[in-house]
C-alpha cells in the first residue's frame, strides 16, 4: 500500500500558515526573539521562538476550547489548514473513518497552572473542568479527535524531540499495512514560561541574547547552544487509493521511516544510532543515499549534537548532498520538530528551493565536510530525508518523495 501526503499545515514562529512560512523559509527569516519574563523567573537565557496565541473564539465553542492546552490550540490551527489543503470537509470526516497520531511530550503550562491553583485554593474542583484535558500528554489527540469527530486510531507518541517524526512514521506504517486509510499526523509544542525551565537548567541554551536572529546557528563553528520554540505542524497521510478515490491533489509520498535507539547516554547522541536510523529509512525506501536530493538535519545548534550528526550524515551521504537545518530560523521546535520539518520539506519540494541554514558562517572540523546550504537556493527536490533525534537516544528518519 503506498502512502501519500494530501495536505499539511503549520503554525510556528516563522509564520502562522503555509504562505507565511514559505516566505520566511525562502528569505531565511529568523523567528527567534527574547522573552524578558524568563530571566527573573530563573532561566539562564531569554531566547525563544516568538509565537502569537491564536484566537479560536470564532471557530470553537466554549466547551471545545476549555480542554485545549496551549499546544492543542496551535495544533487545531495547523490541522484546520492541513484538512483544507487536503480538501477534507467535516462532512467527509462524519462519513469516513480517519485517525489521528500526534507527537507531544509535555504539558508543563497546564500542569503548573493547575497545581498552583490547587495549592492556593486547597480544593481540586477549583481548577475547573478543562484542566485535566489540558494536562495530559495526549491533550492534542483528545481535543482534536473530539473537535473533528475522528473515529480511527487515536493516540499520542512521546519520544522527546523525535515525537513528531515518529508520529508520521507510525501513521505511515498503519496505512501501509492496510489498517487505516487516512491519518492526521503531526507534532505540537508548548512555548510558555514553564515549558523549558529544566531544559534551560542543563546549560545547553544559547546565551547570544544580544543577537537573537543570529543565536541559532547549527553546524557553525561559533554555535553556543539551542533556542527552543514551538507551535504545531500537521500532515494528512492517506493511502494512494484513498487519495485517488477522493480526487485529492497528491503532494508527496512517504517512502521510508527508519528508527533506532542509541542504547547509550540519556542526553549525548551517538553517530552509530543515527547512521542506523538513516540507513534503515533508505533501505525501506529502497533507494541509495545518492538518490537523496536534500537532507533536513536535526541539528539544533549545540556544539556536541551537531558534530555527531554531521559525522553521521557524512558517513551515509558523503560530502555532496545538500544539507540544511531549518532550526537556524525556527529554533528547536522539540516535540513538534519532526513534523514541522516535514512540512518545511514539503514547502521546499513544492516550491523548488532549499531553505537556508542561516548563520552558517564558518564550519567546524566535521561540518566542513558537508555541503551545507547557507543561502536560499533554487533546487528541484525529488526525494528528501529528514532526521529527528531525541533525548534517551531515540532516532527517526523519514524519506519523502515527489509523487509520480
Amino acid at each position, binding site marked *: 500500500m503506498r502512502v501519500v501526503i494530501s495536505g499539511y499545515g503549520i503554525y510556528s514562529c516563522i509564520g502562522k500558515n503555509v504562505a507565511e512560512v514559505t516566505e520566511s523559509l525562502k528569505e531565511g527569516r529568523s523567528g527567534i526573539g527574547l522573552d524578558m519574563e524568563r530571566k527573573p523567573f530563573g532561566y539562564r537565557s531569554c531566547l525563544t521562538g516568538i509565537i502569537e496565541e491564536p484566537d479560536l473564539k470564532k471557530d470553537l*465553542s*466554549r*466547551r471545545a476550547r*476549555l480542554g485545549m492546552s496551549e499546544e492543542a490550540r496551535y495544533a487545531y490551527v495547523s490541522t484546520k489548514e492541513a484538512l483544507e489543503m487536503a480538501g477534507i470537509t467535516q462532512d467527509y470526516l462524519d462519513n469516513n473513518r480517519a485517525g489521528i497520531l500526534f507527537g507531544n511530550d509535555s504539558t508543563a503550562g497546564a500542569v503548573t497552572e493547575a497545581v498552583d491553583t490547587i495549592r492556593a*485554593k486547597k*480544593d481540586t*474542583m*477549583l*481548577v*475547573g*473542568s*478543562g484542566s485535566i484535558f489540558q494536562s495530559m500528554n495526549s491533550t492534542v489527540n483528545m481535543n482534536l479527535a473530539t473537535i473533528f469527530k475522528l473515529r480511527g486510531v487515536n493516540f499520542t507518541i512521546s519520544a522527546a524531540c523525535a515525537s513528531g517524526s515518529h508520529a508520521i512514521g507510525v501513521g505511515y506504517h498503519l496505512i501501509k499495512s492496510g489498517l487505516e486509510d487516512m491519518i492526521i499526523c503531526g507534532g505540537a509544542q508548548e512555548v510558555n514560561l514553564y515549558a523549558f525551565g529544566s531544559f534551560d537548567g542543563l546549560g545547553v541554551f544559547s546565551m547570544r541574547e544580544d543577537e537573537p536572529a543570529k543565536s541559532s546557528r547549527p553546524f557553525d563553528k561559533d554555535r553556543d547552544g539551542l533556542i527552543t520554540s514551538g507551535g504545531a505542524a500537521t500532515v494528512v497521510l492517506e493511502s494512494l487509493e484513498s487519495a485517488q478515490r477522493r480526487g485529492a491533489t497528491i503532494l508527496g509520498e512517504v517512502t521510508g521511516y527508519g528508527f533506532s535507539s542509541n542504547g547509550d547516554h540519556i542526553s549525548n547522541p551517538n553517530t552509530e544510532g543515527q547512521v542506523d536510523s538513516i540507513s534503515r529509512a533508505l533501505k525501506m525506501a529502497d533507494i541509495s543515499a545518492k538518490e537523496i536530493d536534500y537532507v533536513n538535519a536535526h541539528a539544533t545548534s549545540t556544539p556536541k549534537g551537531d558534530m555527531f550528526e554531521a559525522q553521521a550524515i557524512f558517513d551515509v551521504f558523503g560530502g555532496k548532498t545538500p544539507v540544511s537545518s531549518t532550526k537556524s530560523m525556527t529554533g528547536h521546535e522539540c516535540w513538534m520538530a519532526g513534523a514541522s520539518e516535514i512540512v518545511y520539506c514539503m514547502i521546499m519540494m513544492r516550491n523548488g528551493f532549499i531553505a537556508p541554514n542561516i548563520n552558517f558562517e564558518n564550519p567546524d572540523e566535521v561540518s566542513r565536510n558537508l555541503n551545507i546550504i547557507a543561502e536560499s537556493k533554487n533546487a528541484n527536490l525529488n526525494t528528501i530525508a529528514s532526521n529527528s533525534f531525541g533525548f534517551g537516544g531515540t532516532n527517526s528518519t523519514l524519506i519523502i518523495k515527489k509523487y509520480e
Partner: protein
Amino acid sequence: MSREEVVETVNGFLAEEFEVEVDTLDPNGVLHETLDLDSLDYVDLVVVIESHFGFKVTGEDFKSISTLNDFYDFIVNKHEHA
C-alpha cells in the same frame, strides 16, 4: 449584596464564562437547559461562584436549584450566611 447586584454579577459571568446572551435569559427558565449545562459545566459553575462570591458550592446544593431564579436566590441566601 442586594439581589439586583447578585443578578448582575451572575449574568455577567454567565455571559463571560458560559458565552450566553444575557438578553435572552429567562429567570424562570430551567438552569441546565438555559445554559445548556452538561456534567462538566457544573464544575466550572463552582469555580466562577467561588471566584466571584468567595464560597464553595457542592453537588448537593445544585439539587435544590431548578430555575435561574432559584439560582439567584440560592446565591443571595448563601452570600448572606457566608
